[in-house]
């Protein structure tokens, strides 16, 4: 365990990019689920296309916002 901590302390450079990579995992999964299920819903019930598309885009925006906040945060907190 202490060896791992020592190793982690030695890491330097552009850590923000690694952090953003981690932050993008969740929204990536979320967007995938939304569009996957949205397409399925469209295939099952094509007549509800308008309603499904509106909710799909809404869900997409909710998820995507998390990834975008990840982009902005390094600028807020600086170096």
């Amino acid at each position, binding site marked *: 365990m202490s060896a791992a901590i020592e190793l982690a302390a030695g890491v330097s450079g552009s850590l923000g990019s690694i952090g953003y990579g981690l932050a993008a995992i969740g929204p990536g999964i979320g967007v995938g689920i939304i569009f996957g299920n949205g397409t399925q819903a469209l295939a099952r019930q094509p007549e509800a296309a308008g309603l499904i598309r*509106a909710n799909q*885009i*809404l869900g997409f*925006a909710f998820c*995507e*916002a998390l990834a*975008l*906040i990840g982009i*902005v945060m390094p600028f807020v907190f600086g170096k």
Partner: protein
Amino acid sequence: MSADQTQLAFDWSCRILSDNGCGFPAPGLHSFLFEPLATIGGFEFNKVMLLALITTLLVVAFFWAAFGKAKVVPGKLQMIGEAGYDFVRRSIVYETLGKREGEKWVPLMVSLFFFIWIMNIWSVIPLAQFPVSSVIAFPAVLAAIVWLVWVGLTFKRHGFVGFFKNITGYDKSLGWVLPLVMVIEFFSNLIVRPFTHAVRLFANMFAGHLMLVMFTVASWYLLNSWLIPAAGVSFVMTMFMIVFELFVQAVQAYVFVLLACSYIQGALAEHH
């Protein structure tokens, strides 16, 4: 911060493999700061404010020209205006608020939609090339307007006690978890909601502008000796990003207005 940096957002003479040994001039916060164009009595008037002003005039002038003298058989301009108005009315307001309640909110939502959309579109218009909504103040004020509207409406509809019941999601059937739910709902509705509402638009435009600037700067930076093909790739990416941004701009305006409508719907809903 030099005027050069804020105007051009990068060092003009900097190229890869050149002798002066400068690194890639990455875009950062300095791409969002502008030297004032004019100072009027201590008030600094910069490019962002100018664009916002033009946006306002443009939206007002367009709808004035389209509907100022509305005819039964519409002309070309009125046709476009009606198409835009009808799009917001049918696909956003009616879908969320319904026909009876929604009609009253159509004007607000139409103005919000077109104002935000045009503020976003400046991002890809030559010479302007800066999305006004990537400055947090603009989305923050718009979100504050929507917040005031729905909070006020909730008070008006439900009264003082009803307001808190509506905001905290009061529901007796939840039993012992009710206090916890109420606290979480209270904070998420009153404080987190307007924050994310503004930040969603802001962050989208901020990130989009950064990407555009990065690929544009990179296509210039790589334009040297054997790396010229790489500059070509970067230039193609710039073009691709412009098309993608056009899509994102429309989606963000749509989402902002859709969320505003769904908040108002929450205010109108009867609690049970």
